[in-house]
């Protein structure tokens, strides 16, 4: 993680707490049961105080940041005070927003540029709850999304592609167009093989060759429905060329790497690269020679 927030970086991160209400089977930052938000507080405040006032992006994450109560709002206000042009990307599982009182309070406090990123693991509760490792999480997230949507918050849905959901990517996309058409963006994400994803590797990992057809269908549905769609963390060589326009350079510089075979790839500058933190990579990586 960075020591100083700067303009133009996608690596300006406030890590609020390790607590979480979900236990996602591929979590790359496994949660803790005890509250460590005060432990992180000093470092976070220091990051904000020393930030470049021109900073345009700050990500607030965890764990589940909404579990830290007023601390989250304290961070948000400090960020917007210190960096008025900054857009906050809040990563949350969305469950807290199922609570009407919380949404009301949040709406009062969240008075700056904000983009809320929420994972949706499936189009049905059975798969979602298994992936999230928490009963009731699908409906709570769905309700949270509706509550945020009705108030006009900008929402990013994040679909992490796994063995448990890769067959249904097109159905997830259709579910989104029918039930969550108000979201601003859907991001399909490749897995960072660390934390629980490493521990559960054989249970969760799915190589891209098995899902690209379904991914293309899903993106087609969303894109034609005027919902902005992006692919994160999947290198170009694993995607059909039709999907390249959707692929982002998503991996932060500090944890981005390439393999030796990538050196003569003609798409290396466009590619998201690989997680240096990942313990395993796809067997299908290959340079694109043009």
């Amino acid at each position, binding site marked *: 993680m960075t020591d100083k927030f700067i303009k133009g970086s996608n690596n300006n991160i406030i890590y609020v707490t390790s607590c979480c209400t979900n236990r996602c089977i591929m979590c790359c930052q496994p949660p803790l049961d005890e509250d460590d938000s005060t432990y992180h507080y000093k470092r976070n405040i220091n990051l904000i105080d020393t930030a470049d006032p021109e900073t345009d992006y700050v990500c607030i994450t965890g764990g589940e940041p909404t579990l830290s109560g007023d601390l989250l709002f304290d961070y948000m206000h400090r960020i917007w005070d210190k960096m008025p042009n900054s857009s906050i990307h809040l990563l949350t599982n969305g469950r807290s927003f*199922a609570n009407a009182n919380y949404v009301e309070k949040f709406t009062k406090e969240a008075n700056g540029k904000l983009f809320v990123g929420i994972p949706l693991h*499936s*189009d*049905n*509760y*059975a*798969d979602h709850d298994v992936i999230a490792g928490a009963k009731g999480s699908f*409906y*709570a997230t*769905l*309700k949270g999304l*509706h509550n945020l949507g009705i108030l006009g918050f900008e929402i990013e849905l994040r679909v992490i592609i796994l063995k448990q959901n890769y*067959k*249904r990517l097109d*159905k997830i996309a259709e*579910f989104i*167009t*029918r*039930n969550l*058409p108000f979201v601003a963006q859907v991001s399909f994400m490749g897995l960072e093989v660390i934390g629980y994803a490493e521990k559960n590797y054989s249970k969760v990992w799915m190589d891209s060759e098995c899902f690209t057809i379904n991914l293309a*269908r899903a993106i*087609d*549905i969303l894109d*034609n*429905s*005027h919902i902005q769609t992006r692919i994160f963390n999947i290198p170009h060589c694993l995607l059909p060329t039709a999907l390249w326009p959707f692929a982002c350079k998503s991996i932060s510089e500090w944890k981005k790497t390439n393999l030796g075979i990538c050196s003569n790839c003609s798409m290396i500058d466009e590619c998201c690269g690989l997680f240096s933190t990942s313990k395993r990579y796809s067997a299908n990586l290959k340079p694109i020679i043009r």
Partner: protein
Amino acid sequence: MIQRNNSYRLLPFKFTHIGNKELIVNEVGDYLFMPNGTVQRVISGSVNRNTEEYRDLLSKFIICDSYNDILQDVIATRIRTKKSFLDGFTSLHIFVLTLRCNQKCVYCQATSQNKDCVNKDMKIEDLNKAISLMLKSPNPHITMEFQGGESSLVPSLVEHAILETERQNKSVGKEIKYVICTNIIHFSEELLNLCEKYNVFVSTSLDGPESIHDSNRGVSGSYKHFVDSLLRIRERLGQDRISPLMTTSVLSLNYPIEIVDSYRQLSFHYIFLRPLNPYGRAKENEDWNLYFDKFLEFYKKSLDYILLLNKRGEFFVEGFTAMVMKKILTPFPIGFVDLQSPAGIINSVVVYNYDGYVYCSDESRMMAESGDFTFRLGKVSDKYEDIFYGKKAQALSRVWATEYIAGCSDCAFQQYCGADPVRNYSTQGDWYGHRPSSLFCKFHKAVFEYLFELIDRRGNEVLPIIRRWIYD
């Protein structure tokens, strides 16, 4: 009570057979195509939890594992969205400024009169009162549409209507869109100026290539005038400010490809394949059963051709398909008054006729021409409440929704279709209607079945194209 070994619960759904499959549709229009026998297994509780089928049923809200509050909230939001076309009440206000016309269309639904005929223009006092009624609508967004007859024969009435609306609206503040429906045969500079100044949208009609168009108009040289005016209007107002409707005469039925091509030749990227309506002059001349069978074939051929054009990279929309598919593929309602429940009449559209009376719909005032005043809601001088919430409106409301009329309430296509008491009355003699013998029902069912077959057989190929149409 059926004992279910898997203990999942049913949500409300309807189903039908299409080919050798079952189409299951839930209460908010989500659908599933499943092998025959699925419904039986679903209701007997024998769907296995470890299957994709079980997940599909959950995802489409056909079954659930518990009736929880959040699921209810989500479905409630879906219903609210589907019915949001009701939010503002009447949005489309049609003004029949004159019944006179300069064409003699073979299918005329409006019983138009010779252009020199007298007493067929709207009186200024009536027009002013109608405008006041229109501005009493609770809807903040109003479309004011000038119809006929041929509205371009009364340019001064059109101008008065717009100026008077602008004047009265100063204290009301609604957003008003003006539309002039005209054959553009004689579209004067004066009208062009008016359209330019008040952003008036020109809605016209084009029935196909010159031979078909002129034959349908019953006047030779129509097509040439049409093209001349079209170019003038486009140059002055912009390419997108004029759009035609196509009406399929008996002659047209034989030329599905040529008609689509005639639109392309004139640089249109949109066609709306519209069948004849059994009203006015059109009512007399047809074996309607045969006509609709043939229209369906015409529609399929045209649509197939249009889909092929799109596959080749040309963006060209078939409007009727886009409307129906929007209902099938998205959570949103459509602005097409023919396929709404509750019906489009009064809820979405109302007509102020040249005779000084208010009617429920275009078809209603057309019936009045043959002496049937069943759907007259009142005089323009009556109180708004007495017209829009009066006895007649109340009586109509008891038969205007597919959710509760026999033959619709249990139909798998209910979510996509609409109720039409006016059509029921004109074709079957009563408001309620009899679905098993209704042509409206037969025709729309056939269209839905065809489109669902298309989704099933060629979904991966055609749905991306149709989605682009819907969200265009």
